[in-house]
């Protein structure tokens, strides 16, 4: 059997037992990418030579009898928002076309320390702004479940690479749902850790108070393994949490929720949620009850304002963060004819380098931060953020974790919402509150919606610094659903490649 259908934990074990080599595993995944990526377009750059030389180095070290970390030799797809020294990093933007960063992000440094083999960089909405990967300057990614549909966003490339069996692991970043929503619509698992748990050094900033990198995979255990590999204090990120990383792997393996209180958030269901999403969500709740969890209903009355607050806070921070793309030190430069001023060149470069959604958000953020409007827009949004934090604090006195559907609907058609920014923003309605409060959030598959046969995501939210809880509940739910279905959800995904 090919290694492409194996989980990262299975591959890690087979590699440790020297049943297979890291080079074989890398080669089979690279072959799979060549076979199917023409249809899926999950990757923007494939680093074949780099991946093979990393794999070779792992095999050599293993041959000497060295004990290696659990993911050594396992391949991974890296979202193109993370720097990797010498490897093109575009963030899905024309602005950075051809740029090769001179340094590794801390996430990449940690992946390398763990012997993880990086296959390439994955497609994304430009600068991580979007929910469909349609905002990439390099063309959309296609959902492996139905190539006419979106894979979610902004990390659609990472999620699609997992669902298409191009890689067993991927890195995502989540500012308002960019890990969890793509996981939901592709039938994969994605985790946004507590804010500050994973270093942001080398993550090209979009909205610094919300951005958080995290693990993506096809199983809860695999995300836990990757979480432990990339998390931890980093002096290069002043918002990095200086505390030991918890035992995510042990929590994912617990398969027990007896005595845990699970809170259903009343406001994250009902109107606007697809019938099949609701049905699969309710079935997952029943499975958790069977596993011994106690279900309570909690209310979070201010969540209805979260989306509005997010679309002021994130654009405000983005308008400031993206000011660095000024055509002076890196990135493209347009119109420098020796006559024009730096400011004219800057304006021309930013006109050409940025796409529609990025410009829309920069202008919106510039407006929200302007004198005269600051208090009414950005100031009010920051107050709403306080109210959302308080809602979570109150809810966590009644429940250990909170749950909801990850998204209101299954994957929509490519192009369907491209001209309606407000409709697009509604995708993130259930994921955004987590970012506003800086807590942990996971999405895992809970079935296919009966009406369209597409994956439905189940979201678990845990208090800040208690990410173990979402792994414990997620691992238990996954095991219960797996025994009910008799096979993983992705076993039902259509075959890709040459017909």
């Amino acid at each position, binding site marked *: 059997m090919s290694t492409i259908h194996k989980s990262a934990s299975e591959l890690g074990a087979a590699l440790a037992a020297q049943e297979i080599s890291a080079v074989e595993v890398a080669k089979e995944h690279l072959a799979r990418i060549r076979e199917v990526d023409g249809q899926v377009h999950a990757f923007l750059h494939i680093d074949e030579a780099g991946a093979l030389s990393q794999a070779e180095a792992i095999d050599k070290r293993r041959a000497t009898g060295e004990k290696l970390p659990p993911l050594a030799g396992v391949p991974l797809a890296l979202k193109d928002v993370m720097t990797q020294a010498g490897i093109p990093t575009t963030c899905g933007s024309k602005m950075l076309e051809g740029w*090769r960063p001179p340094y590794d992000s801390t996430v990449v440094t940690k992946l390398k320390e763990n012997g993880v083999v990086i296959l390439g960089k994955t497609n994304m909405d430009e600068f991580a702004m979007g929910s469909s990967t349609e905002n990439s300057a390099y063309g959309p990614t296609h959902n492996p479940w139905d190539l006419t549909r979106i894979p979610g966003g902004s990390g659609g490339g990472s999620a699609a690479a997992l669902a298409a069996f191009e890689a067993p692991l991927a890195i995502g970043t989540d500012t308002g749902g960019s890990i969890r929503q793509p996981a939901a619509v592709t039938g994969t698992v994605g985790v946004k850790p507590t804010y500050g748990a994973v270093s942001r050094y080398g993550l090209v900033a979009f909205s610094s108070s919300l951005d958080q990198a995290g693990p993506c995979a096809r199983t809860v255990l695999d995300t836990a393994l990757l979480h432990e590999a990339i998390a931890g204090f980093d002096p290069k990120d002043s918002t990095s949490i200086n505390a030991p990383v918890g035992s995510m792997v042990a929590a994912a393996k617990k398969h027990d929720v007896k005595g845990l209180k699970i809170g259903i958030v009343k406001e994250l269901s009902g109107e606007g949620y697809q019938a099949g999403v609701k049905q699969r969500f309710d079935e997952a709740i029943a499975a958790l009850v069977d596993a011994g969890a106690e279900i309570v209903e909690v209310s979070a009355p201010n969540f209805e304002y979260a989306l*509005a607050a997010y679309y002021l806070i994130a654009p405000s921070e983005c308008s400031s963060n993206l000011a660095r793309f000024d*055509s002076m030190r890196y990135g493209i430069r347009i119109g420098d004819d020796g006559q024009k001023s730096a400011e004219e060149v800057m304006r*021309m470069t930013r006109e050409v380098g*940025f796409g529609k959604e990025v410009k829309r958000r*920069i202008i919106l953020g510039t407006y929200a931060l302007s004198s005269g409007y600051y208090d009414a827009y950005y100031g009010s949004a920051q107050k709403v953020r306080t*109210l959302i934090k308080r809602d979570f604090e109150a809810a966590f006195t009644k429940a250990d974790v909170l749950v909801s559907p990850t998204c209101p609907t299954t994957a929509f058609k490519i192009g369907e919402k491209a001209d309606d920014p407000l409709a697009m923003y509604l995708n993130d309605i259930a994921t955004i509150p987590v970012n506003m409060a800086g807590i942990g959030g996971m999405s895992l598959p809970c079935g296919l919606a009966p009406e369209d046969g597409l994956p439905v995501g189940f979201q678990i939210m845990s208090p800040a610094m208690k990410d173990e809880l979402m792994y414990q509940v997620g691992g238990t739910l996954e095991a219960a659903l797996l025994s009910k279905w008799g096979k993983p959800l992705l076993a039902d995904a259509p075959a890709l490649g040459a017909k």
Partner: protein
Amino acid sequence: MAAISRDEVAHLARLARIEMTDSELDHLAGEMGVILGAVARVQEVAGADVPPTSHPLDVKNVYRPDVVVPSLTNEQALSGAPAKDEERFKVPQILGEE
């Protein structure tokens, strides 16, 4: 609905250093009105007694020890420069020539 004029968008685009065509300005003025109308809801809920939250972590200034550590070489720092002149970034004129 919060109306926003084309001239206002043009002003914002100047502040943000983005050149925009007339049709882009027109289009964006329409969209901005709709988006601002939707996000203005934040003004309905929070009273004056609610403190703002700018960040999920309650961190104050974080300092590192004042010790010199290795950093990028000049060559590495200049490796992505659109234009360079020996050991420096080369940029278009900043002050007028006249």
